[in-house]
């Protein structure tokens, strides 16, 4: 399925929900925060977010910064 991830269109294996996508992308769950279609989704709710074609997903984490 086509998703817009961090500003770029990506063709990823079909994922039933947001948690599956994170697992497919092998991201560290405890290090990231996600916006799904411009709304922040808390970690405990990832499994309940059903993904649809062309959904917009932002995945961010903390980095060093002043």
């Amino acid at each position: 399925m086509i998703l817009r991830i961090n500003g770029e269109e990506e063709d990823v294996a079909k994922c039933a929900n947001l948690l599956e996508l994170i697992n497919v992308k092998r991201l560290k769950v405890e290090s990231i925060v996600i916006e799904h279609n411009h709304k922040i989704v808390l970690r405990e709710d990832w499994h309940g977010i059903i993904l649809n074609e062309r959904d917009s997903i932002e995945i961010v984490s903390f980095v060093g910064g002043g």
Partner: protein
Amino acid sequence: MEDVLKIADKSIKNRLFIGTGKFANKALVREVLEASQSEVVTVALRRVDADSSDENILDYIPDNCTIMINTSGARDADEAIRIARLGKAMGCGNWVKIEVIPDNKYLLPDNTETLRATEVLAKEGFTVLPYMSPDLSMARRLVGAGAGAVMPLGAPIGSNRGLKTKELVRIMVNEIDIPVIVDAGIGWPSEAAACMELGCDAVLVNTAIATADNPVAMAGAFSCAVAAGRTAYLNSGIAVNESANSSSPLTGFLRDTK
């Protein structure tokens, strides 16, 4: 009575705040924080690079530190608000440094957008520390908007040029009742000490420590300087005079005849 800096519900003993950008490796961040005993630390938020196996910066920040989310990268209030909310969702507290910068050459903040972000985020319960161009009227507006402290710049970010805004910061220190923290531009420990001697409540340093030949030693030097400047501010009571005032007795010279 112990001298502590109070911001929101925190009592902070070490008045050197440290930014975690530009370090050669993340392990240095922990060593620097241990050497300096700093208690307030900034981090930034960026898109995840899926190809990078980079470790989490938070793993290198001691548990006793307060993490302040820097909204760097925001060009207006809306972007700053979005970054702050994302940072809060990470579960590391609700302290945020508002940094709104539309200018890439000097990295000077947009005070008006900073005020707008402060108004929104303070109402949402964030502890807001806005990075600002030093200006008394704007500082007053930020106090009214619910800022926990104001953070005037000393010189452009990463320039290491020192406290070039001294007179404007002095006015803010004199007139603003919430903490005034110099953020950006401080290159040497002596400049950090000068900020504290002036009456500033804390200093935030990043580049001068992170890019030093020995960041750990430099962090220790900054920490000492900030503490020394604070002690001097609290205890000096000295006057500055145009002419000399002898330190030694002006009587009993060998040349004197009775």
